[in-house]
């Protein structure tokens, strides 16, 4: 089983340079449903809307005309910290985001990004600040590019910035392959590890 390959991305970047943006802010608990589709409406609900009726807060970045169709979000440190809710990633994707560029990520959020083909781009603080300033300057008129295969960000000023993505994750994104299919190739090793541990530590099998 595969999902959409993610190779080269081009789009508008929106700056949200805040540290410790938690997943409760990305998608409030009360907006989460069993279905993934439609969550984009509730993305950053408490910041984006000034009331429950959906009246927009004009100051919030995603309500500014230039960033309504943004594809990249530029965040601060520890982006996506807090709750493990995968709905945070589904909401970002449903809104139209294809990559998040930040100084660092909440550990669980990062893994959830990979599982859903949302590219997590970790960069130095100075680089993040520069890109956020640039995104603010160009106001969506000029596009940013991200090359997943070469792990490079190409901002519209002609520069390029490398980022780190483990080879395995890169392969998953570029091929659109699911992790499960890669891992099942290791079934013999899984079985061996299980047999060894259960033989040496029989209490690993729950006692009922």
């Amino acid at each position, binding site marked *: *089983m595969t999902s959409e390959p993610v190779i080269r991305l081009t789009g508008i970047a929106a700056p949200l340079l*805040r*540290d*410790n943006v*938690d997943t*409760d*802010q990305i998608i*409030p*608990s*009360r907006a*989460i*449903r*069993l279905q993934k589709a439609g969550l984009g409406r509730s993305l950053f609900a*408490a910041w984006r809307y000034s009331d*429950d009726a959906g009246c927009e807060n004009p100051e919030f970045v995603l309500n500014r005309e230039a960033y309504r169709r943004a594809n990249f979000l530029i965040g601060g*440190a*520890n982006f996506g*910290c*807090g*709750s*493990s*809710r*995968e709905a945070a*990633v589904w909401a970002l994707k449903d809104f139209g985001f294809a990559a998040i560029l930040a100084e*660092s990520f*909440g*550990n*669980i959020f990062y*893994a*959830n990004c990979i*599982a*859903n083909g949302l590219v997590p781009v970790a960069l130095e603080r100075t680089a993040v600040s520069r890109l956020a300033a640039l995104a603010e300057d160009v106001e969506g008129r000029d596009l940013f590019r991200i090359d997943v295969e070469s792990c490079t960000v190409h901002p519209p000023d002609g520069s390029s910035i490398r980022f780190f993505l*483990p*080879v*395995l*994750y890169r392969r998953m994104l570029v091929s659109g392959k699911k*992790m*499960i299919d890669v*891992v*099942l190739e*290791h079934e013999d*090793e*899984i079985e061996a*590890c*299980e047999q060894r*541990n259960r033989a040496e*530590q*029989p*209490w*690993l*099998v*729950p*006692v*009922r």
Partner: protein
Amino acid sequence: MINSAPPRRRPRTLFDKIWQRHVVSDFGDGLCLLYIDRILLHERGGGMALAALSRAGRRVRRPETVFATFDHVLDTRPGRTGAALASGGAEFIDALRRGSAFHGVELFDIADERQGIVHVISPEQAIVLPGTTVVCNDSHTCTLGGVSTLGLGIGTSDIEHVLATQTLVTHRPKTMRLRLEGRLPASLTAKDLVLHVIGTIGAAGANGYAVEMAGAIVRDMTVEERLTVCNMAVEFAARSAVISPDEKTFRYLAGGTFAPKRALWERAVAAWRELASDADAVFDAETVVDCGDLEPQVTWGTSPEHTLPIGGAVPRPEECRDPARARRSLEYMELTPGMPIAGLPVDGAFIGSCTNGRLSDLRTAAEILKDRRVAPTVRALCVPGSTRVKRMAEAEGLDRIFVNAGFEWRESGCSLCFSGGENFEPGRRVITTTNRNFENRQGRFVRSHLASPKTVAASAIAGHIVGADMLGNRAR
């Protein structure tokens, strides 16, 4: 004489010992395939993962290692019927029930004596054991480090992956030893300590690390105190937290429903005695947090790192780690720099959650509430962390103390820790034993102040934030 001693093994940390035994394969770049011993599921995501597995035509690889419970959106009001209050909540409950039945997964359903918050019931019933790897669709899975389990919070897709393969693809975190040092006042609680740790190292302080909580203070803690401390490790961005096991750990787990029995128990304990970090083990980072003469702690802002001693004053943004965030927090919390945090009126008080919903937490709060009444302006709730905790508390008469004081006495679950169906009224100020003071977490514009069960109980009585030591006399 020939030296026949075996070559000395490189000293290892507790984390190293657990990790090495579970690595199936190394993918390079720090990514490993890790074998998982237990999979814990709750209804917020558990049912989705099981359904996705069915749709893909796959089976649960080892159903005997999977345990499911209801806690997140389950109604906690007395006399609950199993209906969910959250819109869409019933679907989550239904999905987990159907998925568990289909895949042969053991589910602690609503009327089951074993139901409760997943991180409370799993050590309580010895579902998790020292040296094991455990995943759950919940960020507070790090709680389980309190019984020397490597608990990893993961998302729904990764849960599906582990259900199918019994493995997780994950980064090997770096190791950090976080030593708590100093002489503590006897009245201080584990919650105060961990809030102080987050205030000191920051909400991103241990990003990328598996942290071992260590030092004499941790050694002297009860297991339930250790669970409280490890619970909040995710609030300082740790991948997980662990504490080396000792006799207290073994006593806590002994006799648990799913604990190994008799000879197998003896064998297990002998192996667990070897798990503690070696004396000369080297960590990637060492952090010391001075806890000497610490006062009870309470948060003022919208990040768990916004902590204050209860005798302290709200800081100026410039004094904070992230001044812009602090400015927004002050505005959201309706506070001004320089004002003392004690004396701030509260409308709500919440005791419970995976942080502070265990029997010892309820006992501590009840000691303060005995022969006292909650201020008439305060809505106060106590939500036991598990059905067993509730029963044990009732057997000791704690429920009468809570009810007589004016607290609501609830069925077990996560309840108002977050908006899982019920909310505090918009804009209310709440003092709470939970772990997150994020904006809108407990309701629209609700202002949450994190504190210990003692401080929450005392503040509920006073009607404003106050330390238990400052409370007036009991009613006659």
